[in-house]
């Protein structure tokens, strides 16, 4: 009897500690997001001092959202500016995403299946390259693309793609390694060409990694500031949401006073397409992480 109650007490203690740790972690994760959302509904332009009292909003206003959704700031743009910039960002990010998938899958297939010299070295090299921060390549990329007269959208897509595709190629190699080659052989006997097998079987079976690549590519381009600033910073008609948001929040020009409520509202608005993308690909994403966990 005594032993049983001791066991119960021990179990309660164990659960208590687990929950405590989890709750603290959850607070750390949720507070910043809550803070940004709250800020976006306020008319205060300054960053609030973080104290418990300030976490409960006293006044709710949609002023920042109204300004972002309907405001016209640049005279040469004939529509509300910020939605246009978001559209630019989405198109740019989607293009980067598609190009990354194509490149990563082709490279990954080659690294995994084809018999070529120095394959292992190449795979390792690909992996090591991913350690370098993409931002560090902005200046050389700018110089190179200026020479090629590609300081525009096309250039941006081309510049963003390797940032995702190199890492994704390595992931794709791992994913394709884990697909038994029998499936491909069977598909060839069934009546597909080698390329047909690649499109209809390999893509389908590596779908979690394809989805992950799409997401990484989209995120990379969507969230970029440095490269976009270097490439199209001078032309406000072509801006991406990130550039536009920095401008509208007054962070573009250090002399002006920042509007943090605008910045927060912009962050929330920009998050909506990302949320949608995550929700759509959630199932695939879970599988991508679990399938990668199974690979050494």
């Amino acid at each position: 009897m005594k032993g049983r109650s001791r066991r119960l007490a021990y179990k309660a203690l164990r659960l208590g500690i687990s929950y405590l740790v989890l709750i603290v972690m959850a607070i750390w994760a949720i507070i910043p997001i809550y803070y940004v959302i709250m800020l976006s509904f306020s008319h205060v332009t300054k960053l609030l001092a973080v104290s418990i009292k300030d976490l409960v909003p006293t006044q709710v206003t949609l002023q920042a959202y109204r300004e972002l959704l309907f405001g016209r700031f640049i005279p040469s743009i004939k529509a509300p500016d910020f939605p246009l910039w978001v559209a630019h960002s989405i198109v740019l990010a989607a293009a980067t995403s598609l190009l990354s998938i194509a490149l990563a899958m082709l490279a990954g297939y080659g690294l995994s299946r084809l018999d070529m010299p120095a394959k292992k070295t190449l795979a390792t090299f690909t992996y090591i390259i991913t350690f370098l921060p993409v931002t560090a390549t902005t200046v050389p990329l700018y110089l190179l693309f200026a020479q090629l007269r590609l300081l525009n959208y096309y250039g941006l897509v081309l510049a963003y793609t390797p940032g995702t595709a190199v890492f994704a190629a390595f992931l794709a190699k791992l994913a394709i390694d884990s697909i038994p080659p029998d499936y491909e052989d069977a598909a060839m006997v069934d009546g597909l060409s080698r390329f047909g097998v690649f499109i209809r079987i390999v893509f389908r079976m590596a779908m979690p990694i394809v989805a992950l690549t799409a997401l990484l590519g989209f995120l990379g381009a969507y969230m970029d500031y440095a490269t976009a600033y270097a490439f199209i910073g001078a032309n406000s008609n072509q801006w991406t949401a990130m550039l536009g948001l920095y401008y509208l929040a007054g962070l573009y020009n250090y002399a002006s006073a920042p509007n943090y409520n605008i910045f927060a509202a912009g962050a929330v608005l920009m998050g909506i397409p990302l949320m949608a993308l995550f929700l759509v690909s959630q199932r695939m994403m879970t599988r991508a992480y679990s399938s990668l966990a199974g690979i050494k």
Partner: protein
Amino acid sequence: MEYIKLEDIWKTYKTKGVTVTPLRGLSMSVDKGELVVVLGPSGEGKTTLLRVIAGLLRQDKGHVYLRGELVDDLPPRERNVAMVFQSYAIYPFMSVYDNIAFPLKLMHRPKQEIDAQVKKVAEMLRIGDILSKKPSELSGGQRQRVAIAKALVKGADVLLMDEPMANLDAIVRVYAREELKQLHKELGTTIVYVTHDQVEALSLATKLAVLHDGVIQDFGDPMEVYRRPRNTWVASFVGNPPMNVLEGTVREGYIVSKKGELKLPLPSSYRGSVREGQDVTFGFRPEDAVVGEGDLRGVVSMIERVGAYTVVHVDVGDGTLLRILYPSTTQVNRGDKVSFTVRPGSLVLFDPATGKRVEAASS
């Protein structure tokens, strides 16, 4: 008519820096409607052989003919062959129905035709009730049927099977074997079936091909290969337990073993083909030894109980062991002295230099 013909096929490839040559001048021809079982030890190129026929691998040298036509330069999809893989290779992301329909969809057949065809094949293989399931929900036996259905649906008249029963349990395997035989009889498809399983090979084949060292060692009626193997390697490989193969010399109408004390009368059919004093290799099947009579003697050194029968290893001197079959009801113990004889006419002679079977002068 030669439906599948392989002519001097060579294939070498590198795996992890090691160069292997599984096929070394292999030639084989298969008549229309035969079920040829290619039997060979693991890792000796049986699968490579199938892949060369299917066109998944390009041979380094030699030619492949299908239906009398040279197909060396045709990709797999233009060879009109179907293949069942050891792993079954049923796409996990498609339902059973879609898996079976896949080859037909690739041929852009009309929907109703595809539907009718899939249902027909499914009925034939008794998988009509699982068509809507996903492969992960199937048992091993069901998966195998789906794989066969997928291979049959195209209507290809050449069917290649790569150990399709290796992953089935023993009882299911017996039925699957019988069904495959039945199916073959009904459809008349030309089948090349690869396995390392002796029983499977002997029970399924209408023609047995034994693959070793990259060439076909023996080809023919399975029981003929079993009774009269073409060389000593085939003798010591085919059958479980395999043949007893010993070195000996012809002396005064007898064959006397070089090691051990074995003296067997030379069968009259061989009288004309060997000389007095000639060295020969001779062999007999374990089931051709008759225990309890005759003047050959030995000591039991090992007993393998298989169930239906017992394989007894008998030492006939100098550590020379013979495998002899006992009925499973016979009591036998290690160290027992036994006498036995070998059925006359069951002896097979080989040339010790080449290992080839010596043809009997008269039979």
